[in-house]
């Protein structure tokens, strides 16, 4: 090794020629950059004109084997498998292969998955307005006419439709939901007895009284897994009450000039901030995720647990008769609003090659068999029809009854986390700040609104 010292790139000893090469390379790179067309103007974007309907629509599946792919969030694997099983019993020539990503990953990947070359035939769509604006979904009007989907409840149709400006709530239909979630407050009956809460709260004042009683009795009044953003549930419940259904739904549906940063909204958030200041939430809310919070609730650590019917079966398994469900309290008696949106809002990607068969599946979702499957899993059924059966007196029956009442009173509100593809991350971060009083209610809503407008390009 005596001949060489530390190995040095041989090029540096001929520094002038290296420099010459580098200038050549730099110029070449710059030229390439300048010459490149703007990203996304090529094959990436979807031709909106061809994203529409085929010439004729068939409702007959025939007997030839058909293969469909379905793309959904992993949390819904069990219920989707059951739906598919029921579907293939009815239509044996169809096989449906499934693909699951973790729930929030699926929501954020969906736009890219839909624009790939092999999109699924049926996909759960969360940011419906964005995706329709990008021309990535099939307009279902022809099938809606063929299957009579305009007879679906108005409140549900509102979740499926998008108009020409990309605003949800009316217009052409793009999706059908497999079922609905409904959110409210679960309460621990034995803890309620201990703290002296005799009836579940119907108004916000009653709720606050119950929270205070729980705090005095030394239990956690309301346990939230705010590491995964569960704190946004009670906040939205209050915003619903103060700002009203129309205002919140407009915001989620991306209606022009919609804003969440309203005086009523600030009032609502202030109330929840007060709860946090009073210690009504678990002290380690930001360090607990929702599954841990659920586990601790079943162990009797808290009085209330804000969640939806997706947790019903595990709560029932672990708490039996000890758990009850109540819709979010209202500011005035009798007008309860609740976050309720599709379990999986299934749409057909524009590039799918099996649209007729996929539409048969969508129609199946409103059939009695599918409705029963959804209820068996603790979800609320899609469409209309006879109420599917539930065991008497069970938690599920309680929730179904609450949901039926909600639909009748047209009290379904969309989740604010779904307003745009990326707004969930903002809600999450901001709620974590709010719970620890590191931001004010005014700044909280202002930050969310600012991000909303930026993401929608307003």
């Amino acid at each position, binding site marked *: 090794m005596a001949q060489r010292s*530390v190995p040095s790139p041989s090029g540096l000893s001929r520094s002038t020629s290296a420099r010459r090469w580098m200038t050549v390379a730099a110029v070449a*790179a710059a030229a*390439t*950059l300048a010459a*490149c067309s*703007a*990203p*996304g*103007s090529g094959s*990436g*974007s*979807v031709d909106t004109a061809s994203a529409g309907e085929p010439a004729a629509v068939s409702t007959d599946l025939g007997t030839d084997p058909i293969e469909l792919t379905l793309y959904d969030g992993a949390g819904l694997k069990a219920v989707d498998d059951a739906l598919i099983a029921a579907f293939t019993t009815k239509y044996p020539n169809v096989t449906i292969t499934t693909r699951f990503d973790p729930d929030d990953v699926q929501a*954020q*990947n969906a*736009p*890219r998955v839909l*624009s790939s070359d092999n999109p699924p035939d049926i996909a759960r769509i969360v940011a419906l307005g964005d995706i329709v604006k*990008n021309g*990535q979904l099939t307009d279902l009007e022809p099938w809606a006419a063929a299957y009579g989907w305009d007879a679906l409840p108005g409140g549900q149709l509102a979740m499926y439709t998008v108009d020409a400006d990309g605003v949800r709530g009316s217009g052409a239909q793009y999706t059908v939901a497999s079922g609905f979630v409904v959110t409210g407050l679960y309460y621990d009956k034995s803890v309620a007895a201990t703290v002296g809460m005799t009836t579940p709260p119907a108004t916000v004042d009653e709720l606050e009284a119950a929270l205070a009683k729980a705090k005095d009795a030394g239990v956690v009044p309301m346990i939230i897994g*705010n*590491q995964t953003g569960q704190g946004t549930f009670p906040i939205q419940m209050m915003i619903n009450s103060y700002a009203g259904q129309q205002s919140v739904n407009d915001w989620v549906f991306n209606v022009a000039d919609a804003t969440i940063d309203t005086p009523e909204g600030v009032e609502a958030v202030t109330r929840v901030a007060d709860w946090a200041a009073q210690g009504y939430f678990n002290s*380690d*809310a*930001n*360090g*607990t995720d929702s599954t*841990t919070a659920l586990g601790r609730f079943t162990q009797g650590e808290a009085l209330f647990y804000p969640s939806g019917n997706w947790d019903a079966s595990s709560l029932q398994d672990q708490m039996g008769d000890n758990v009850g469900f109540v819709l979010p309290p209202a500011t005035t008696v009798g007008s309860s609003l609740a976050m309720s949106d599709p379990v999986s809002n299934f749409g057909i990607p524009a590039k799918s090659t099996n649209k007729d068969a996929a539409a048969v599946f969508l129609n199946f979702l409103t059939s009695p068999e599918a409705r029963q499957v959804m209820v068996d899993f603790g979800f609320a059924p899609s469409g209309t029809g006879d109420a599917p059966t539930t065991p008497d007196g069970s938690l599920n029956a309680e929730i179904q009854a609450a949901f039926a009442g909600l639909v009748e009173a047209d009290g379904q509100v969309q989740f604010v986390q779904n307003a745009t*593809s*990326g707004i969930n*991350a903002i809600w*999450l*971060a*901001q709620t*974590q*700040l709010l719970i*620890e009083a*590191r931001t004010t209610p005014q700044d909280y809503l202002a930050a969310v609104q600012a991000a909303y407008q930026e*993401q929608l390009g307003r």
Partner: protein
Amino acid sequence: MSTLDSTLAGEVTGGSWIARRARSGSRGPRLSRGLSGWLFVLPALSVYAAFVLRPLLSTIQYAFYDWNGITAATPVGLGNFQRVLTDPLLLSSVGHSFFLMIFYTILPVIGGLMVAALIQEIRLWGLGTVARTTLFLPQIIPGAAAAIAWVWMFSSNGAVNQVLSAVGLDGQTRAWLGDFNFALTSVGVIGTWLGLGFCTILLMAGIGKIDVSIYEAARLDGAGFFRTFTSVTLPGLRQEIGVCVTVTLIAALASFDIVFMSTQGGPGTSTMVPGVLIYQLGFTESRIGLASALAIVLTALILAVILPIQRFFREE
């Protein structure tokens, strides 16, 4: 290895006059040799150019547009870069990664130096292997798995709180990764864990290379421990320290796996680092232009930090 060397050397000196004749031969063989040299480089170069250099150029290009990844993009000039340098969230993410440097780099280097200086070499049979194996384990397991392990340890019911309670510091227990004041430090602890073993081994190996006679000379001169440390050990370990610093600094600035799987940047944005923010901006919020600008700034930052350090530690 050395026998081979000398055998080769023997052959070479024997045949060198032939080699000299070949070199002074016609231009033909040399040109074609240069060309075939290119052919040898071609596979590596093409795959590198296609999947590293070209995307890098694309990142630079994207940074000048506002793009959501699906529809056509709109040019915004330097707007994204301006945003990176002024937006509090983006700036704070850079600040966080600088803070993490303390834990990823400074603590492991100091710890490694202390162990290396105090022990010098391990003579106890078996302890050497055990030490090397266990100290290297953090580098072997995937970062995502390390994050899972530490998330569990930092949780309310986890080992960290258990240890605190055991030593009587009950009042200090908390959900570490969910606490605004301590989350970033906790992430830093994970970084220290990652780098400590690596630096310790590297520095111990480096100390083994320092000539024993220098230590003898220092001792004869009456130098105490500290004096020996600064005048003999530190300079002798210069290159190894440089390596530790470089490797761990890049890990701190570019960190993704650990933060992504442990805090996702939360609570709030108190542990957000550029790597995770780029992913979030690019793939969750579909703001490709801004994400690309941040990526470029991150790359420039890494270069700006590493190059001077390399120069400093490599000067012989």
